[in-house]
């Protein structure tokens, strides 16, 4: 599971690199389809403000 920090700016860069297209970006929300997530962490890596945090 990924925790979305309060400082996420909903820019959508994470969604752009997700190889499985699992991130739906709303104006002030992100919805992850975690069921199909392969935990590649690319979304976490590219975030310009490191707003995504992996939670076990």
């Amino acid at each position: 599971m990924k925790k979305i920090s309060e400082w996420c700016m909903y820019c959508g860069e994470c969604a752009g690199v997700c190889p499985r297209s699992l991130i739906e970006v709303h104006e002030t929300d992100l919805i992850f389809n975690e069921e199909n997530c392969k935990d590649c962490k690319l979304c976490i890596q590219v975030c310009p403000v490191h707003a995504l945090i992996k939670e076990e």
Partner: protein
Amino acid sequence: MKLIETDVLVIGAGPAGSSAAKHAARGGADVLMIDRKSEIGSPKRCAEGVSKEGLKKLGIEPSPRWIAKELSNVRLVAPDGTDVKLNEETVKLPEAGYILERKVFDKHMAMDAAREGAKIMVKTLAKDLKREDDSLVVTAERMGETFQIKAKIVIGADGPESRIGRFAGLKTAAKPKNMESAAQFEMGGVELEDPNSLEFYFGSVAPGGYAWIFPKGEDIANVGLGVLATETDKSAYQHLMEFVENCPATRNAQAVELNVGGDPVGGMNKKLVTDNLLVVGDAAGHVNPLTGGGINTALEAGLYAGEVAAAAVKEGDFSKKRLEEYQKLCEENIGKSFDKYLKAKEYLLSLSDEELDEVAKAFQNVKLDNINTKELIKLLVKVSPKALVKLGKIF
């Protein structure tokens, strides 16, 4: 569920979408454009530099409402502070000309589309897309209401997220090594050496990219940088904080806005069309791989997309084969020029801070008005034989 029918559905109302909607409507098609934002153009994800020539070529009349500043100089700064100054007379600069007020510009472009007859829905998110007979049906959500939009042609202009193309099977996802992570402050109190100069800072200030200062006024500027997440463990924001603290121009400046976002710099996508669908703008990789600039190309590609879509609607043929005319137009007019920018970028990013300093120093002593490619290469050889080896691989 409510169903809306249209000839052309444009998803995303950035420069790419608005241009596509305008030209599709002008060509006689019924056009609907949707954007998930409550305010088109905001928040901006952009340093707002645009080519004057490029706008003129597309017949876009400049308006004082959305031009923050006109400028014609460029200052390239090496890691040790050595700088090279260029101006429009000596070199052709791809993104120089105007600094926009994009929050106004993007709205203006959308209104232009509306004037041609396009309908617009804001705060409307496209969630899904499926094929039905010879059309596409998009599930959309607006203010708590879910409904469907059936279109003969969908134009995916959804920016760096590029999910619309993927819904239809195109490979539009960017690899992290091709996606700049960018962060920027709009600042006041910037101590600019020359308020008429775009400034670019190279080297380890921005691993995998560069830092910029684009003036919007005498002491106002967009100060930002792009990095590749594959080249650094710090976030773009952390790099930006360090840059602002260390750069003489921004040490005493104050931020009034923070912008972040992705910029796909891997070059144009191989496939831009499939049956009933085209992608345009950032979603199609229509971004100059060297500068990261994508406004002009988004507008230009939008024009091709809109015209081809309108013609296809008239002919009643929405097949991939018919839409490939758009692909060809993009390859000829946009993709080709990107190849050389991609090579120049690879070269630039291959240089160490020391090599960049040496290159900048060598440029101090030449008159730039009469330098040609051969002399340029000779100069680079003199500076650093190592740099030559890298250059040899590229040219």
